[in-house]
């Protein structure tokens, strides 16, 4: 049996399966990786269009992305610290930058607003970094991509490191002498980490 015939058969089976009102996926979150077969078989893509079995292996639209193309945009930081640039963050330096560039919107101690509260220590405080953020790496990623709100993307990596250190300190997570960097930021233990659970609801009658 040729690969093509096989694909068509799978496509037909999927079609019948769907047509019976039985759906294999309901948009639910499954945290396991799809198998190689799911990704490589044409049939995976044949959910509602069996003609996809006739598609060329590749359409050839678009251009190959160069390493430079990728580096220019690839700014995300993973929870394991992947993507963090070189640099060191010091609490005292961070405090000075905070007073200059953040205080107007987040308040003298990070609690007064007018915008998001940035400092919290106990469970009873308003949700903020100290009692609600599960990963320290998110702080670096977010400040670098989006803050200051009215001048996004204006901070250099060094400033972002200092601000990250300062906010972790203000939230009672690191001490004033701590120095953070690409290797230790992901290891900072965030108090809220253990509170986070994955949504495992799948519909059905139970209200949760």
């Amino acid at each position, binding site marked *: 049996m040729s690969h093509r015939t096989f694909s068509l058969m799978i496509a037909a089976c999927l079609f019948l399966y769907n047509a019976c009102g039985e759906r294999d996926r309901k948009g639910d979150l499954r945290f396991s*990786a799809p198998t190689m077969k799911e990704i490589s078989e044409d049939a995976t893509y044949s959910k509602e269009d069996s003609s996809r079995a006739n598609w060329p292996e590749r359409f050839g639209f*678009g251009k190959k992305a160069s390493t430079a193309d990728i580096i220019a945009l690839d700014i995300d930081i993973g929870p394991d610290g992947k993507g963090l640039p070189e640099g060191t963050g010091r609490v005292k330096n961070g405090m000075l930058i905070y007073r200059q560039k953040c205080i107007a919107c987040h308040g003298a101690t990070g609690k007064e607003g007018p915008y998001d509260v940035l400092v919290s220590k106990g469970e009873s405080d308003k949700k903020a970094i100290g009692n609600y953020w599960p990963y320290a790496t998110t702080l670096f990623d977010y400040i670098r991509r989006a803050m200051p709100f009215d001048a996004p993307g204006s901070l250099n990596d060094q400033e972002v490191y200092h601000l990250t250190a300062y906010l972790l300190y203000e939230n009672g997570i690191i001490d004033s002498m701590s120095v953070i960097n690409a290797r230790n930021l992901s290891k900072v233990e965030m108090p809220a980490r253990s509170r986070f659970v994955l949504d495992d609801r799948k519909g059905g009658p139970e209200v949760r």
Partner: protein
Amino acid sequence: MKQKKISRRQLLGKMAALGLVLSQDPLGKVIQQGVPLPQNTDDPTKKLGVFPGKLGTRSSAEQLEKLPTFTSSRSPLQNFYGTITPSDLHFERHHGGVPVILPEKYELLIHGMVERPMKFTLTDLKRFPSVTRICFLECSGNFRSGKEEMTPQEICGLTSQSEWTGVMLSTLFREVGVKPKASWFLAEGSDAAVMTRSIPLEKGLDDAMIVYAQNGEAVRPEQGYPARLLLPGWEGNTSVKWLRRIEVADAPFMTREETSKYTETVKDGKVRQFSVVMDARSIITFPTYPVTVEKGWIEIRGIAWSGRGKITKVEVSVDAGRSWYPARLQEPVLDKAHTAFRFLWEWNGKETVIMSRAFDETGYRQPFYEELVAARESKGGYHFNPVTAWALKGDGRVFLDNNDFSGISWEK
């Protein structure tokens, strides 16, 4: 006698300038007559109308407006008929304003755990096999209450529905060759927030799309021009607008919008994360505050939707939840789509409370406020989809009912 031909343009110009009308004399000759412009006439048959134009207009009698705040703008659900949201009234929620992106400069980069990292221009995206589908988009922070004088727009106007056209994300993933170990991808926007969300690859291979058109034209700037991710049935924030980059990976990135925001506190002090599917919900959109109705026949109307599939049933109560009746659903009922429901009712003029509740194909029933509060030990937050009740006063005025349904049998 020779008749002089008058072009339409000349005619319009003259008419406008001089208040001239054309008429024919008894021999059929076109003559011009100066007459006073018809003033203050409300008889449209006595006044020449507006000639065809380049853009349509909305009747000046229809005051349709979104309701903007610093962070969002709400759709006027109570003014809509059917289920498609006019594009200029689609709700807005963004975290750094609406960016200006030139279509010729647009590029989508796909990289990470793929065989061939690629970048696609808008023209490239449009060359791929295309798909059109209708679905709702709803912000997961779509619940407000607190006073009686609230419209559906104020309560849950952060939901809208469009017909979207674009390319299936699975088509692009096939083109770049996703590696077998991949299980998540990051979607990133090119707005001032450089919005990012981690999405399970499974959703990407299921019904995710990159859309460039909305209701027959290019996607509106507020909705992600020139191209956005569309994840049918999922909380709006995950359908990243102004999409510039997709990075395929084997773990979520834990961005700010999936940790500090768009998570909700649930029982035992826990925080529920990646709760991305929108639960079934319905709302009556007529009669609601601020309308006043008359005794007699009333068609109760509303919309119902579920992120987990199709709406299977909507029930309406006109006696404060003591009894429930099935409403008529407008066919075709679509997957993950606003579905119009209607319930014809003869109101006897006595004060009562009306409400609706939605059911979807997973067997889920839209819960009452108290049920959600009890289940989550929380009085609001993301993914709060309670039954909305409307108090109908004896004089026909309608108000949002305070959410106290104690004493109602929920399971009816």
